[in-house]
């Protein structure tokens, strides 16, 4: 067992691309679920719309990179409005079912073979990220210290990703201490009371859905650019459920909850993956019990278990406040 390697990998996972993607997705989800109490189970759709908006604009239509980003953001706003119109007046569990259905509809449509010329079908699209890497200020070489040594490409991705996380967290922090944020939190606590004060609850929920969707869509851009491709099955329901686990781990309705949740989540997954893989190759775990192909499955089993146990024993996560959770069906 090469413990130094395992620990290096875990440290890199702390600030890695996955952490960035899920932190951004969960920051958006935090606005929806943590602050407004909207049970959005279709967060994957916001990431997918943004990623496909960018990829289709650049690699199919040949538009410049910046225009692709704008189309991605417009896509996320349109998605939020379309999702919100039928569901925001309904009970929380209906919202959950409709959002998860909408996310699956989007995924099934973009992976359909009949749209291969527009969306690349199940293979997805690539060759749209050169505009992003052209902006790279890092010249060729490696940067960093200790275990955190990256080439110029990865350094650029990580820098942009963490700048986006700081920006998104600042936006959430500023919003939630504004009068708008207080109304949003009041909607979560008791929307009838807010309505009786003359506020348009529906409009506030819609604004929250749009803002959270746009913040989440930043994660979609990072996923597309970091991997250099969009692939429809990366935007399945698992992405949403992982983002929920991240949010609940860090603590919902806390500005830094999603960020810390994402970092911890990926460190734990990196540790378990690496330790299991090394234990198997060193022969500590017999291959009759588990092969290295099955290590990836253990990850999902653990996430499922973690989500259950968190919700049962510590729904407020690490930093959350139990009183600030919208967990009672209304």
């Amino acid at each position, binding site marked *: 067992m090469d413990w130094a390697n395992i620990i290096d990998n875990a440290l890199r996972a702390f600030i890695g691309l996955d952490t960035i993607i899920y932190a951004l997705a969960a920051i958006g989800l935090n606005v929806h679920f943590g602050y407004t109490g909207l049970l959005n189970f279709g967060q994957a759709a916001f990431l997918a719309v943004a990623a496909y908006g960018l990829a289709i604009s650049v690699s199919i239509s040949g538009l410049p990179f910046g225009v692709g980003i704008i189309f991605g953001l417009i896509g996320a706003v349109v998605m939020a409005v379309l999702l919100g119109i039928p569901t925001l007046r309904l009970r929380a569990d*209906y919202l959950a079912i409709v959002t998860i*259905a909408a996310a699956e509809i989007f995924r099934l449509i973009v992976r359909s073979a009949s749209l291969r010329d527009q969306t690349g079908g199940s293979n997805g699209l690539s060759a749209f990220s050169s505009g992003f890497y052209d902006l790279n200020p890092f010249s060729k070489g490696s940067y960093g210290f200790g275990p955190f040594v990256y080439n110029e490409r990865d350094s650029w991705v990580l820098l942009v990703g963490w700048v986006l996380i700081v920006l998104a967290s600042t936006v959430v922090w500023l919003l939630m201490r504004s009068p708008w944020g207080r109304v949003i939190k009041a909607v979560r606590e008791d929307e009838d009371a807010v309505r009786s004060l003359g506020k348009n609850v529906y409009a506030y929920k819609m604004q929250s859905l749009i803002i959270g969707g746009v913040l989440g869509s930043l994660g979609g851009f990072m996923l597309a650019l970091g991997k250099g491709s969009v692939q429809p099955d990366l935007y399945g329901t698992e992405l949403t459920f992982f983002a929920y686990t991240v949010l609940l781990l860090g603590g919902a309705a806390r500005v830094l909850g999603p960020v810390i949740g994402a970092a911890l989540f990926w460190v734990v997954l990196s540790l378990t993956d690496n330790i299991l893989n090394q234990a198997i190759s060193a022969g500590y775990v017999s291959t009759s019990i588990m092969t290295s192909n099955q290590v990836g499955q253990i990850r999902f089993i653990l996430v499922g278990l973690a989500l*259950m146990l968190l919700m049962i024993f510590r729904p407020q996560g690490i930093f959350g406040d139990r009183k600030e959770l919208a967990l009672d069906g209304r």
Partner: protein
Amino acid sequence: MRRHAVQAMLVIAGALIALVGFGAMPAQADGETVQGVLRNEGTPVPGVNFTLTGAGGFSGQATSDATGKWVISVPGPGQYKVTLDAKTLPDKVTLRFPERNPFTTTVNSDQTKSVIFALGKDTRVTESNADQALNRFAQGLRFGLLIALAAVGLSLIFGTTGLTNFAHGELVTFGALVAFFFNSKLGWPLLVAAVLTVVVCGAAGYLQDKILWDPLRRRGTGLIAMMIISIGLSIFLRYLFLFFFGGTTKSYPDAQGATSIGPGSITLTALDYLSMAISIVVLLGFAYFLLRTRTGKATRAVADNPALSSASGINVDQVIRIVWIAGGALAGLAGVLLGIAQQINYQMGFQILLLIFASVTLGGLGTAFGALVGSLVVGIVVEMSTLFIPAELKYVGALAILIVILLVRPQGILGRAQRVG
């Protein structure tokens, strides 16, 4: 030929580049050819003449050899027209797509372009629209009955406990896997396996409630928290199944090789009809239980208003236990039958979960008969929609219906008009 000399030099240069390590280059020295193999139902067809014409007045001929193969070298990249001389085909052998003869093809640099002329009867869709629609309807009915088995349980669990159970699909998968274990590993006949599976799944439903949901209800855990817990349970179980069952798709030994028995254009096997009959009998039996028996009436009362039923002396806890047992057993049966209708894999239940939700919402959340009607509508819509849209998008139609229903009639077809928001 200067052209060939240049090509040869290019090829040598390419080979050198490949040697130096710049990656593989196509190292074919024969230039461009157009070729094909002519077969009729698997046997080669020799002696058929082909003519090829291209830009600049180029033309070439070839005759298919004993293996059916024909090759025509062309002078360079470009567009070429290949014509099969239909008169030289053997008697009673015809082109399957006469409109594709002559065939125009584009040859790239150094490419060996294959052109296939298919022979034999045109086996493309020959069914009339009415026949297709009839078959799709029958398939839809079968699929709807399957969904109904799972949906009734999900709806009653929602009605009696308020839980939106995202792990219900895993009960369906569990049923299919248990039956596969009995049928394939232990070699029991499928019918025996199915009966035992239903028992095992009923027990699994009971245990799930006893171990997980009952304690949570006693703690007063919120409904949203329980919904998220059910998502965790769903992921946990699904990947546990993957871990033990593997990612491959399998089918019951007893259900393999069945042929469809009609009538007419309907492609259902005897086993399919049997499974539809079982679904109908079970659903009717369950309806009788709900409508006529004391416990069934109590169940509907609890689904309608748990607090009021409790106050009027109904043992709500017992009703919930029965609902979980019945829900587990029905979902297990749905899994067995779904395994016959499709095949078995670790996420088969999760794949239809959203359709189950769509059915339940369509019929009216919490009502057993609404779930039944909703399922039949969803099943038939899913299958009939493949007449108009690609089959890979068939679930999209059902999910879109779900959203439309929520827009115009959120309480569902049979649901009571009440405030749901």
